[in-house]
């Protein structure tokens, strides 16, 4: 490499504000765009094009027989929303319940792995990820066996009269768990739990242990230390964990399909039915967009409240 190119490159790499502010000359001007190209192409092919296609589908009218044509029929959105709002509300509610449950179950575990696991840490982490080695579907179906009506879980809960309480609360039905809202929420919680634990673990693991000692030196009780030091420092993990759990859970349809009943169908089921059974592609596309918009709005609101400083 000649000395000239080295200096040329060095000049470009150096973060010198006055230099950068000046208009660049020659091929250097396009370098940032070339560097962006792979990412941009990826975004265009896998995000922008499908989105445009979907947006177009949502404002079309027609049938498979006569073809679908773009008629700018925005009423589809309103019709879809007024018809299927209960499923939207249900999806959000189930996903929110599952996220809270994931946080309650996942936080202690992540805490344990980060601070108490010692040399077992890697093993426990692998155990957290291990369920991913089998198919999502198989794992969900396994819950049908675990929660079977005549199975030991339901039997125990019944003899403890816990199912009477949940039935009174309206989340189970007649001494069973399967085919009730509780089963769907449990399935969602189980399936998305690792997405909560892993980000929680990474942000907990980064906390300097000396901060705990310092808190102790300043006469903070363990509870206060957790409240004032550990939890605030783990907030990035909490935020990304809840997002990674809530977003896919709200769009999930497998759990509702396999573990649920007619009154637990989520919006993912509706979209699937519209697309594959009824062949009403515009309504399916409109529902997808409404779901996306709703999630985006909720997530934006949440991030505004919780803060995004160094997420991940």
């Amino acid at each position, binding site marked *: 490499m000649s000395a000239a190119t080295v200096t040329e490159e060095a000049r470009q790499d150096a973060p010198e504000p006055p230099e950068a502010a000046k208009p660049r000359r020659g091929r250097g001007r396009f370098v940032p765009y070339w560097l962006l190209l792979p990412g941009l192409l990826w975004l265009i092919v896998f995000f922008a094009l499908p989105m445009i296609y979907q947006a177009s589908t949502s404002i079309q009218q027609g049938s498979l027989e006569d073809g679908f044509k773009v008629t700018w029929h925005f009423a589809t959105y309103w019709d879809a929303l007024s018809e*299927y709002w209960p499923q939207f509300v249900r999806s959000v509610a189930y996903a929110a319940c599952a996220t809270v449950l994931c946080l309650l179950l996942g936080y202690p575990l992540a805490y344990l792995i980060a601070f108490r696991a010692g040399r077992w840490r890697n093993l426990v982490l692998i155990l957290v990820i291990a369920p991913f080695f089998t198919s999502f579907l198989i794992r969900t179906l396994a819950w049908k066996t675990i929660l079977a009506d*005549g199975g030991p879980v339901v039997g125990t809960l019944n003899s403890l009269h816990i199912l009477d309480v949940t039935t009174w609360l309206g989340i189970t039905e007649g001494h069973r768990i399967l085919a009730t809202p509780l089963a769907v929420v449990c399935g969602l919680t189980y399936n998305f739990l690792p997405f909560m634990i892993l980000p929680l673990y990474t942000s907990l693991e980064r906390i300097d242990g000396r901060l705990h000692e310092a808190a102790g030196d300043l006469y903070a009780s363990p509870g206060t230390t957790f409240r004032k030091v550990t939890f605030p420092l783990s907030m990035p993990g909490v935020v990304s964990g809840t997002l990674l759990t809530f977003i896919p859970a709200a769009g999930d349809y497998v759990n509702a399909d396999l573990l649920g009943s007619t009154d637990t169908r989520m919006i993912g089921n509706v979209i699937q039915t519209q697309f594959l059974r009824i062949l009403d592609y515009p309504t399916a596309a409109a529902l997808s967009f409404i779901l996306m918009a709703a999630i985006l709005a909720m997530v934006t609101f949440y991030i505004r409240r919780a803060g995004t400083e160094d997420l991940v």
Partner: protein
Amino acid sequence: MEQYEPDLSPAQLAAMRRSLRNARARSAPFSMSRRSLLRASAGGALAVGGLAGLTGCGIPAAGKTQGGAPSTDHSAEEKVINFSNWTEYIDLSDDEKHHPTLEAFTKRTGIKVNYTEDINDNNEFFGKIKPMLAGGQDTGRDLMVLTDWLAARLIRYGWVQKLDPSLLPHAYTNLAAQFRNPDWDPGRAYSYPWQGIATVVAYNTKATGGKKITSVSQLLDDPSLRGKVGMLQEMRDTVGMTLLDMGKDPGSFKADDFDAAIARVQKAVDKKQIRRFTGNDYISDLSKGDLAACLAWAGDIVQLQADNPHVQFAIPDAGYLSSTDNMLIPNKARHQSNAERLMDYYYEPPVAAELAAWINYVTPLDTDIIKPELAKIDKDVANNPLIVPDKAMSAKAHAFRSLSAKEDSAFEEKFAKLTGA
């Protein structure tokens, strides 16, 4: 003006003239070029990154995309068939690696069969092959097995090839009368059944406490079954069986009758009688007893009974719903005549008997022809009315009438609401 004479061989000219005589093919060259132009302009608009791109999409009308004229048949030089079927729907050797009937076919004809079990659900499979068929492309399949209502839809759209009867002598002779003239393919010009399906009532005596469940009314009303009843996610099975129970014929019902049947099932859903609407997964639920009784496909039940003696079935007095899974050759298939030879092969009585004895669904061959062959393999199977329907059984069979595209969508939507959307 002098007529333009293209410089082509006589054979090519003949082929062109033939395609011009076909009404559907006539508009194809023009619409194709205009559409591709539209598509190209849509691409340009996309590059500008504008809203204009939205109009460029759209799905062309089905059945007008291509001529339905058969594509070039490569059967002679490529001795291959690409065969797509449902899972566990063919005979299997003891080591679960070979399909004896297929291997015998290859041995006899030298045609290799690439057998793929990639059909799990009619709707899903339709979603998978639709873009290719609508675009007039090869699906990579020469033979596929689809349930009658979907077969009807593909035939209506012109997406499957007409069969050559001269290659199907066994199929023509041996097909049972019950399956000869479905209203969607009279005389079987496009399809031949792979197997027949009987939708019946099944129950687990352990879960019902020994009680026999023999009618759809009982499924929908019996309070002892509350929360333990399964219905099928296939609209035609659930609604068809309910229609029969209400004394209506699923072969000729009106829209009002359909609504009444939906309302009848809705009442059962509302009082929490019905636990779930299921696909094939009712099998494990019924076996475990989570479902005490349900609508079921007879073939599954025959197989299930071998493992679980508590599972019983009943053919309601009101009748049962009979349907078929059909072999079809999609457009642009490369090996049509190979596929037709395979179709015919499965109508040879010894082969059909071997298949029926293994998979336990309703054999599509005429009873008198198949029964002696089956008896040679397994007497019990030959005498099982669920596999070889006897006279009484055939008399109770009812097919669901074919629906127009409009009815299809409207009925599916009403049914989807019933199942929770």
